[in-house]
């Protein structure tokens, strides 16, 4: 158990470093840099641009920039934004709460709605209800978040005037963005839960339970659902990545504060230290949540609890 956690944490470190190196290389080799992208065309002379680049260390060879950057990072220093000269870590931390609020609310919506609709649809498979829910699921996974976000604004803000279309102050501004992200997650979880419930109820032990004369309700809720839950929980862990990616779009559409928007601006401005900071943060969060998800299997499945993770079914 402890060995497992230590192993996973070591692997996490590898994942975070790997993603960080990858992002550094991509941004280094992409054309353009932080200086050119913030200066209007022709407002600074070539000499001046060279000076500013030199001041930021952008003219150093690759291995040197790489060494300086990662040397600092391992000492916990993420450096300063190339655009605003603010230190990166406080800048990110300032925006984390807003994104976390959004991600948690939409995960709750996805999990709640997704499991409910998935189970419901599986129990009524083949009927009109099933067909309707499956369409909803398909809608959830296929509609781009920026589109559904704008539709929600048109309906609930412009037409009905119930909810504010923008901002990040208070619970009311959280509802539409988390619904937008929640629709995507609901679609994913719903489809996963539906198919895994269907798989489970075809298994022989369900037939045995029915043959024993157990009520259909008990068969479903006490036995089928519990067995079908593991894939759904795994999906929940992966949903964190989905939420982080979705935050970039949703935070922009709903004019919210958050690290998704910081990331989008930083990529547009080639602000490497800020991009790196956000990537390391979200990679770390992703790894952590998935570790928790793996540990939670033990709560759900007693077989895993007995044999340990990785060796159970």
């Amino acid at each position, binding site marked *: 158990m402890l060995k497992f956690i230590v192993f996973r944490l070591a692997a996490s470190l590898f994942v975070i470093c790997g993603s960080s190196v990858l992002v550094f290389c991509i941004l280094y080799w992409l*054309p*353009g840099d932080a200086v050119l*992208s*913030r*200066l*209007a*065309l*022709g*407002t*600074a*002379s*070539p*000499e*001046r641009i060279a000076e*500013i680049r030199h001041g930021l260390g952008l003219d150093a060879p690759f291995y040197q920039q790489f060494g300086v950057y990662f040397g600092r990072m391992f000492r916990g220093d993420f450096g300063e934004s190339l*655009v*605003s*000269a603010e230190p990166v870590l406080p*800048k990110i931390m*300032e*925006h984390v709460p807003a994104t976390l609020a959004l991600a948690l609310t939409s995960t709750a*919506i996805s999990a709640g*709605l997704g499991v*409910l*609709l998935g189970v*419901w649809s599986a129990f009524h498979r083949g009927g009109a*209800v099933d067909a309707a*829910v499956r369409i*909803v699921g398909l*809608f959830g996974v296929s509609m781009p978040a920026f589109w559904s*976000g*704008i*539709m*929600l*604004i*048109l*309906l609930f*803000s*412009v*037409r009905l*005037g119930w909810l*504010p*279309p*923008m*901002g*990040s102050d208070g619970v009311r501004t959280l*509802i539409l963005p988390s619904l937008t992200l929640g629709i995507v997650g*609901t679609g994913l979880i719903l489809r996963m839960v539906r198919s895994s419930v269907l798989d489970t109820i075809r298994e022989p032990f369900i037939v045995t339970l029915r043959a024993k004369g157990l009520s259909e309700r008990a068969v479903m809720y006490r036995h089928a659902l519990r067995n079908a839950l593991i894939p759904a929980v795994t999906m929940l862990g992966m949903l964190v990545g989905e939420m982080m990616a979705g935050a970039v779009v949703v*935070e*922009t*559409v*709903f*004019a*919210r*504060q*958050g690290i998704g*928007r*910081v990331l989008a*601006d930083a990529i*547009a401005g080639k602000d490497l230290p800020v991009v790196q900071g956000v990537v390391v943060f979200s990679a770390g969060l992703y790894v952590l949540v998935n570790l928790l998800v793996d540990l939670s299997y033990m709560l759900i499945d007693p077989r895993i609890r007995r044999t340990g993770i990785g060796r159970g079914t």
Partner: protein
Amino acid sequence: MTLLKRNRNPMTAFALVSLLLFAGCSASAGSSAESGSASASAEPGRSAASQAPISGGDLTYGLATSPDSLDPHVSGLDVASRVFRSIYDSLVFLTEDNQIKPWLASEWSVSPDGKRYTFKLRQDVKFHDGTPFNAEAVKKNFDRIVDPSTEASIALSYLTQYESSEVVDPYTVRFNLKKPSAAFLRNLSQPSLAIVSPTAAEKYGKQLGQHPVGTGPFRFVKWEENSEIKLERNPDYNWAPDAFDNQGKPYLDTVTFKIIPEEATRIGSLQSGQVLAIETVPAQNVAALKNDSRFTIASHDALGLPFALFINERQAPWNDLKARQALQLGIDVDAIVKTLYFGVYKRAWSPLAPGTFGYDPALENGIQSDKEKAKRLLDELGWKPGKDGIREKDGKKLTIRYVESIPNKDKKQDIAAIVQQQLKEIGVAVELHFTKDVSQVVLMDHAYELFGGGTAGLDPSALTTFYHTHGLTGWPSLSGFDDPKLDELLERGETELDDAKRLEIYQEAQHYIVDHAVTIPIYVSPSISAVSKKVENLKYDALGYLLLHDTTVRN
């Protein structure tokens, strides 16, 4: 949480989701009906002008992008000027009809050789931090702009002829220029040359952009990144230019700029009353908002250089006038502007925008698209249509690389796509190259035959930047059109102080550029805002920036 609880019954959840689906579709389909129903519920017309202005209230204003910095000397972004115009004042004021009026300077004189400007300053002005405004403060501001460590950009480009400033007496300051400059006085009204508190500039250094301190009608309160910028009334303000009805402190308590990048959300925020005004209304939304009796549309055409396509003459055959004329005649600018901007943007006819000093209206309706003539010109040059319809000469196909930047601002990438279609008809293949890295591709590699550009400016000397051989501060010119005659005209235009003679010079320059097909002017870019009728007397300066001295908000 409550939401989850309520949805515990799967039936309701399903009903909710299907409602969303349905409502989403109907809302998008019925947007025109929507403005009709809204107009029925709107309040009756404006309150009588004779009523006393209402003091108090908060003006919420939706910006399309976030300012990079609120330091006027450093920021080169339009959106930043919209905000800091309310925090800072300038030495002189330019009225909407291009007249220069006193502001922080009460009067001024120019030496006979045009190289020394002496300004008498107001004596009753102080900065938000209590620092007195005087000649010393003005001198420190200009020293700061020209100091390389400030990293000034646009501000510096207005001071190309500036040499030094000196304090004559506590309230008199003198500027010395290297050469006479006709644009100098007018450019002093630019928000980029606004006066910042020298105390704050020293205290915050590069961070002044996050802690702006000026003499303007509003004081800076806070800036929450990606969310809002808040300003409050400067109670001591008593030095607005005569152009305003109210020279004293502003009526509004506070001004809140909300940063709302997504167009649909920005418009939705106005329609749902989250904000009272928004900037950068896309052309396709103007008609619907105009028909909605709750809002007014304010549109200001930018002065300076309109958006124009520069033909790179470094690459053959475009060094030949006939080849360039073929492009000039082959591109149907009217069709482009009408298709993409629904009559909201005006077509540009000259390398200068209408309203800019020196603009020559005689160029209007001059060049008309003529595909047959364009084809003839290319035939004459020996470029004959090949099997695929693309012209060839000596085994080489006639191909153009058209460079445009990412993201697709103002539908400029759509212009590129239409040009591609239009030029195909005359047998020219266009390769579209959309890049984030315009400076590298255009300025350093010259890897383009067509590239669109334009810039806002108050003075026709803005032409120098894009059309003079050495105009682009150390970079080769966009067109590569090395023409001593045009260079000479532009240089004379900069130093000529007699308005009548100057007008002649610039009119000649405009005709010269059009006749030599150096560029193909496309559209005059307007700044379009939509404002709730609860807001009155929102004013704009010559560049279309907000002026809030007289503004009131009704609840």
